[in-house]
């Protein structure tokens, strides 16, 4: 694989140190890797898209990056001071009998670390929550019981929580699963605005790429299934990602010819800026060592 040239990075990306780095990170359960180890850098202002079908390991990768499950090998290194993270799950993650208003859920976004030691929310926190609800167009139902909202409304509340969090890195797991196409498009447009305005890094895990790909500047395709290997699904996915990544909304086609890319031939494809090549070298070096059953 030969990288082509760099894409125009999002603001802050070229000048700031990465928020977090996955170093030879292999993810899985009980010592068994679901994916080969690879490096990935999450820079300020970057938009990383993790794509794959259900059961391919993308959510496991996300949980490992979030620190919810330990890596099989390698590590996730956070910048110092630790960046603020926020996580947007699928709406179903909250208990169906939880008696909270949408506003309460959004207000949780303001709590980081030990800030809860302040027993009452500061005025600034309340203002930020109101503003986030307005921006997510969730004001109208913010005072209704969260459990009685529709899937799309719940997702808007979770978006408001994300906006209120003022985080450095936003991680979203199938964030638009309950949205129609127009809402989905709008949600990704907002995410793109956030990263451009505040230099926030965005990581989206999804199995559908149609709406989000134009905004991504770093793509990770994961699918090690037998079927994907047999059908060359990873290659097809990579081709699709490459095609879309070559036409980003904010890129000048003449000065920024396109992204670098890497095929593992084992169901993992990375597409992104040239610095990803470093990751590819690691990838190749560690691939055989980390996967217990070896590459297919």
């Amino acid at each position, binding site marked *: 694989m030969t990288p082509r040239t760099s894409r125009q990075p999002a603001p802050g990306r070229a000048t700031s140190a990465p928020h977090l780095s996955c170093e030879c990170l292999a993810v899985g359960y009980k010592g068994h890797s679901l994916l080969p180890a690879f490096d990935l850098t999450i820079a300020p202002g970057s938009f990383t898209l993790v794509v794959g079908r259900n059961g391919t390991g993308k959510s496991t990768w996300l949980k490992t990056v979030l620190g*919810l499950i330990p890596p099989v090998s390698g590590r996730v290194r956070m910048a110092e001071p630790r960046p603020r*993270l926020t996580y947007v799950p699928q709406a179903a993650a909250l208990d169906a009998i939880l008696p909270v208003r949408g506003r309460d*859920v959004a207000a*949780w976004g303001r709590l*980081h670390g030990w800030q809860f030691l302040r027993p009452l929310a500061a005025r600034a926190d309340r203002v930020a929550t109101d503003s986030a609800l307005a921006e997510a167009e969730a004001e109208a139902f913010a005072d209704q019981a969260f459990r009685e909202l529709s899937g799309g409304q719940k997702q808007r509340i979770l978006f408001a929580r994300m906006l209120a969090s003022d985080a450095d890195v936003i991680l979203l797991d199938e964030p638009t699963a309950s949205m129609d196409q127009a809402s989905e498009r709008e949600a990704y447009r907002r995410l793109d605005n956030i990263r451009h305005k505040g230099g926030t890094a965005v990581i989206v895990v999804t199995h559908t790429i149609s709406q989000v790909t134009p905004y991504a500047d770093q793509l990770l395709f994961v699918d090690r299934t037998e079927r994907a290997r047999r059908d060359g699904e990873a290659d097809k996915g990579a081709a699709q990602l490459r095609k879309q990544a070559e036409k980003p909304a904010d890129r000048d086609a003449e000065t920024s010819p396109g992204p670098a890319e890497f095929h593992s031939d084992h169901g993992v494809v990375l597409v992104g800026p040239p610095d990803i090549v470093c990751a590819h070298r690691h990838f190749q070096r560690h691939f055989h060592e980390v996967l217990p059953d070896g590459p297919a």
Partner: protein
Amino acid sequence: MAQPDQAQHASEPPDSLDSPHHDMVALDGQGGTWEEFIAGWELFRDPVYCATIAGFVLGFLSVYIVLKRMVFVSAAVTQGAGLGVALAFYSSIHLGIGIEPAYGAVAVSLAVSFMLVLDPQSFGLSRETMLGAAFALTGGAAVLVGSRITQEAHDIQAILFGTAVLVSPEDFYRVAAAGGVIMVFHLWWFRGLTFASFDPVAARVQGLPVGVLDSALLISIGVMVGVSARALGALPSFALSTLPGMAALLIVRAHLWTVFVIAATLGTLAGAGGYVFAFLEDLPVGSSQTVAAVAILVAALAVRQLILRLKKQPSTSAPAD
């Protein structure tokens, strides 16, 4: 430190002590009157205050217990409190080591709580398995140890079923002190405790110390259940630490703070009201408090049905277009 053999009513036959009425009036099976209750207020004040405080704090905690699906945790912890009291008596009588029963109750309650903090999956077990084992172990062991303490049979009965009529000043002060500290702590850490309890994944991602908050919650439940079980009995402590939360959740759908306030109020009503009801009707105290908590739950269910019916009414009566 008070010795178990100094415990209240230890020398009296159990049957004469299971209703507050028996301390004031003749055993005529007719119950007492409000006038008699007021006349004996000096005697009943501490147990009523104790039931009020325990009901309030356990009612507040019951929201966490219900929403975190920890009802059986509460059952195991209250059983543990019973075992702790039995072990304290056994230690004093047979080993000559004087241990205050309330401390025994708190110690075993906390031990059970900490056991439940451990991740059972690391042993290849589910949380339900651990709960079942803890419940069976503490319940069985309390009865076994109790069978070896004939001198304190009434206290064992009191701790398991809540038949104690009066509360010693020491037990009352312990309930008041533990309740006060726990409420101050919970009001202070409320935002963190609720976020970490009800959306632990997001809380962990946002850097909240979820393990610390979970442990603090379990410790506060263990301590409050322990001191309440010694003062009121295990059965009413279990009822007060679960049923008010269920009732409040039936009434309130969206305001978390309101749910906590209503649960604490209902717990108070069940604790103090159950005691008064036991006096007026000449019934065992602990069972009356438990039944009062159940009655409140049933009433809440009725209120819920009424609210649903009232909500439906406008749409059903509206003319079809």
